[in-house]
């Protein structure tokens, strides 16, 4: 038989530990032990490290980095650029994601032959690495040798200096990012369309509602939760965008594409101001944090109301 140690001779926590092993209470912790370790070592610790080093100046503790930030015009510019980037990117990717998802949904529902292969091709940029997308577009958008300006010349345009003009660089960079990343949105919105129960459409058809009516009165209200959730997720994720911007413009021309991730990278790895870079990173963390709170709150609420 199991010999339970006398409760009087052993410290409380040892007894508790023994109890939990006997009753299998430890099982969930064993399963997630590696996850906890990894998160501590490579997530919590680096974050604390960044927070700590953002308060370090020449080996002593001070808020100088933050004071410097608020007087830094490059930082204020970067905040503005980030705001523009996030806004335009989110609108663009939602629109393209929605339109492509709708096209795929309609073609699948009407059993169009070849719709499978067409939808695979339509979302192919999912498989193209950022670096590759950036390089192809760098060529296409080249003012002298690029195909885009060549095509525009048929419409009587002299073409644009896409990536080298301060007026068009940001929008070009966003366009390439949207092209590269919209397929995930297509797939998410498409899976939203598929959650609408077929009976609703059948009932509407019996009532004599046409395609457009069905779309606006059934589909849209039904997936509006997913769309709102996706907008928040897109905003949160758009702060991650780095590679395409970095390769296309490195933040230029004249800082016109210098989003916060680019600024952090410049400070950390080009000017070797690791502590200053950390201070900017902490500000970015706060900005992302605000949207994340909205997002988490929202996804909790919608779970409570809608979800399964």
């Amino acid at each position: 038989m199991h010999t339970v140690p006398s409760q009087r001779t052993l410290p409380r926590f040892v007894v508790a530990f023994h109890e939990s092993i006997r009753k299998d209470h430890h099982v969930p912790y064993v399963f997630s032990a590696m996850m906890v370790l990894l998160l501590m070592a490579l997530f919590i610790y680096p974050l604390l490290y960044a927070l700590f080093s953002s308060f370090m100046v020449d080996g002593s503790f001070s808020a100088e980095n933050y004071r410097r930030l608020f007087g830094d015009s490059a930082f204020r510019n970067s905040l503005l650029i980030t705001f523009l980037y996030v806004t335009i990117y989110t609108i663009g990717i939602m629109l393209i994601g929605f339109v492509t998802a709708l096209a795929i949904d309609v073609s699948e529902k009407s059993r169009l032959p070849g719709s499978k292969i067409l939808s695979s091709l339509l979302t192919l940029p999912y498989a193209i690495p950022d670096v590759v997308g950036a390089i192809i577009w760098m060529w296409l958008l080249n003012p002298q040798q690029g195909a885009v300006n060549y095509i525009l010349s048929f419409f009587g345009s002299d073409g644009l200096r896409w990536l080298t003009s301060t007026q068009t660089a940001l929008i070009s960079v966003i366009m390439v990012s949207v092209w590269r990343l919209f397929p995930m949105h297509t797939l998410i919105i498409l899976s939203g369309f598929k959650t609408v129960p077929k009976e609703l459409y059948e009932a509407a058809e019996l009532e004599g509602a046409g395609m457009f009516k069905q779309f606006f009165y059934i589909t849209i209200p039904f997936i509006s939760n997913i769309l709102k959730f996706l907008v928040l997720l897109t905003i949160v994720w758009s702060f991650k965008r780095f590679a395409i911007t970095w390769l296309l413009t490195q933040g230029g021309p004249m800082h016109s594409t210098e989003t916060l991730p680019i600024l952090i990278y410049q400070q950390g790895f080009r000017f070797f101001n690791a502590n200053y870079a950390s201070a900017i990173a902490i500000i970015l963390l706060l900005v992302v944090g605000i949207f994340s709170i909205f997002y988490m709150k929202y996804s909790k609420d919608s779970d409570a109301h809608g979800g399964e």
Partner: protein
Amino acid sequence: MKQRVSNRVLLYAILIGMVAIIIFPVYFMILASFQPTTQAMAYPPNFFFKTFSVEKIVDIMKHTDIFRWIGNSFIVSVGVVAVNLLVSVPAAYSIARYKIKFNRYLLIVILVTQMIPSAIMVVPLFEIFASGGMIDNLFSLILSNTILTLPLGTWILIGFFENIPKSIEEAAQMDGVSRIGLFFRINIPLITPALITVAIIIFFDTWNEYMYAYSFITSQAKWVGTVGVASLIGQFRTDWQGLMITSMLFSIFPMVIYIFLRNYIVRGVAEGFTK
């Protein structure tokens, strides 16, 4: 009936128009890769195949390290898939099965991880890896990419585990299967398709990652594909065809995987985002 047919034609026209615009850059890359240099680089550009040639491709294969870099990408991506699944499968199982307070907090931390831009982590991770002597070591990429991809994988797996009816576990428990046995012998076989889904998504994300790879690896022989291909931008300057060929070689594998295994990704997305 007549209206049906014209609707279909219209639908085809819209779809094919969209596809043409979206995949034009990819088509252009492939077109430029398989033509003689004079045609590939001609201006005005050629939009259709004229002469087929692999001369330049052979040349690029000989004179760059592209296959070594692609090989490194494979090592890192497969490593990340392995480490990630090893960590996320049991954790996702625990979160899905045991609704205890600890797991609820763990889930929140995992969700937060997913929202943190890697720009925030890159400087501290660099210094941590540097103090451990792990800069210029592919293992540092495996670890850092695991953290990047953990949340999404775990999130999707939780959904799949929750879909397994409790009654299956209860029946097995009646037969005397232990808690650990439940996990290995009952649950793991049931979520094998989910494992494939998650593996593909993690593989793609790691294959695509640039910032960490660019920062933590210094010697050219250890570069992964993203860094190697990007480095040629400076080196080749205006040799657009060379850039297209290296880009094509680097993205051919994910493209093929995507076209054939797209359904797995679709299923993972449906599971992860529309619950």
